[in-house]
């Protein structure tokens, strides 16, 4: 015996036999939770005796479970890698069979090559993916444009029910949340304005502030964001599920174009419904502002309304309403895009919905910023 090593309750003893073989004697109790002995002693022994066979022996082995098998598997794999033969014949039959099962080389499974983790490789992958997505999204917009041409020609093939349902989902069904959010935004604006204006005795200008901010910017923007979270996500989830269930493929084999049959009604419904929703949102925002104005600043309701009328030139209202169809288009296209590009797994549907919301909100805000810059430049 030239080397012994013991771990835990001396469950493993490694020795070098007279015949040159590395012997591993296993004994005691092997149960999950007791920890795994280190394979170091075996590795050292194998290094000291190249190509020597590895022989397992069991001595007073009381109980064993996967812990034993895991240890034997790990050490046997080491021996294999070193080119040594492995003899497990002295182990309990069950353990022997499990080890040989685990050691069997799968016939044709080729594990995926590990991804290059270098920073440059990661940056490169992200860039390639972004470029691919951009090209793909452009193709999607092009496909939708072709469907719209069919629509203008009166030849678009989709079901009117789908249009009505999408209109309901992106219009009537959203009234509640749009009302709540915009009412609160109007109230918050009035409150913030009041704190600033009251010391100057200019409380009445809160009405101007609320009127312009709500109709021109915040009404459309908040409604767009709410719709991205509500309608965009629902489009992505519905179309993603249809993709997963091969319903989209079934459309294509029935010579129906998904762009025409699925995207057109949703796009149309959202573009038409959003201006109406924004008009409603504007009203709610003004009412929120008025509540704060009347109850906290003690302005007369009529006085507040008249001041609002003075401040609110139609220009602001139109600018706000003009943004609405653009937001609607962005939300519908993002939702439909991620839904139709969904992979055919259940997890991908959730991912598609998440992405539709995130990208939808970002695009809505970007379109709004772009519109603001353009309006500033053109002096409107």
């Amino acid at each position: 015996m030239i080397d012994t090593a013991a771990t835990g309750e001396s469950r493993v003893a490694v020795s070098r036999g007279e015949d040159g073989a590395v012997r591993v004697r296993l004994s005691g109790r092997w149960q999950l939770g007791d920890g795994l002995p280190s394979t170091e002693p075996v590795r050292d022994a194998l290094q000291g005796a190249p190509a020597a066979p590895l022989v397992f022996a069991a001595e007073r082995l009381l109980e064993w479970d996967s812990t034993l098998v895991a240890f034997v598997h790990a050490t046997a794999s080491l021996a294999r890698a070193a080119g040594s033969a492995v003899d497990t014949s002295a182990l309990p039959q069950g353990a022997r069979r499990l080890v040989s099962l685990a050691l069997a080389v799968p016939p044709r499974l080729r594990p995926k090559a590990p991804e290059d983790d270098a920073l440059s490789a990661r940056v490169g992958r992200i860039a390639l993916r972004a470029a691919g997505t951009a090209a793909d999204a452009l193709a999607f917009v092009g496909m939708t444009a072709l469907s719209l041409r069919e629509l203008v020609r009166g030849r678009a093939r989709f079901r009117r029910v789908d249009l009505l349902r999408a209109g309901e989902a992106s219009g009537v069904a959203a009234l509640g949340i749009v009302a709540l959010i915009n009412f609160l935004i109007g109230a918050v604006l009035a409150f913030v304005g009041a704190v600033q204006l009251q010391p100057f005795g200019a409380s009445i200008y809160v009405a101007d502030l609320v009127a312009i901010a709500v109709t021109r910017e915040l009404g459309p923007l908040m409604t767009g964001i709410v719709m991205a979270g509500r309608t965009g996500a629902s489009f992505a989830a519905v179309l993603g599920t249809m993709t997963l269930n091969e319903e989209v493929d079934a459309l294509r084999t029935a010579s129906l174009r998904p762009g025409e049959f699925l995207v057109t009604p949703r796009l149309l419904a959202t573009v038409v419904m959003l201006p109406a929703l924004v008009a409603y949102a504007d009203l709610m925002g003004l009412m929120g502002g008025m509540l704060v104005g009347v109850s906290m600043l003690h302005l007369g309701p009529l006085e507040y309304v008249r001041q609002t009328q003075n401040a609110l030139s139609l220009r602001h209202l139109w600018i706000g309403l003009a943004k609405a169809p653009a937001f609607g288009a962005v939300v519908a296209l993002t939702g439909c895009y991620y839904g139709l590009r969904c992979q055919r797994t259940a997890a991908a549907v959730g991912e598609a919905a998440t992405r539709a919301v995130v990208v939808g909100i970002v695009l809505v805000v970007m379109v709004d910023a772009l519109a603001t810059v353009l309006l500033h430049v053109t002096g409107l």
Partner: protein
Amino acid sequence: MSGRGPELPVEVRRLTIGHGGEPVQRELSFGVRRGEILVIMGDSGSGKSTLLRHMIGLDPPLGGDVYYAGEGFWAAEETRKEALRRRVGVLFQNAALWSSMTLEENVVVPLQASAGLAAGEAREIARLKLALVGLAGFEQHYPAEISGGMRKRAGLARAIALDPEILYFDEPSAGLDPLTSRRLDGLIRELRDSLGTTVILVTHELESIFALGDSAVFLDAERRTMIAQGSPQELRDGDEPKVRAFLGGGRR
């Protein structure tokens, strides 16, 4: 409806299949004779369903082409592709019924959209097709309200809506109990016999393979190509060990 069409309604020539990157299968060539039931089988991961997607015109192959009556599908113009698709009916693995529509609407939509039928006529034909698969009386049900086997039959009614020359089935017995699956096999055979439809079937269900297959091809995942072709009985008694093992040959 029998006796129509060319001798080889579908032919695959030197088809290399996959979704970009490494091909799943290379150089597949086989044909289906008119009125024949061809079984495409193979172990999991051998690309049976991918092959089906190439054949029904959903994903372009990496090489080669699928010929419908001698006309290359993937080389054709977009409008021509639509015309070729009209000759084909597909029953997808989970039936893929449009869940927002009733069973009747599921059959009516392709009739109106691809064949341009008037609403009344389309509805009558849809009722007939649903009756043919034993779903008379379920016209106004939604897919979620019926059982898996009924959904498959409704999918079949939709697949045969346009009297296709060629019918594709993707694992028709997947998810069905043996009895329901045997009934569906019977229905497929019945439709072939009465309509003269050419049938291409992807399956690894032994019972279906022997009950339905006039001929079969076997895709091998390891060698990445077709390793056997012939009738199921021939393949079982043939000399390709893997195919024999798959079909239960050599166990007798």
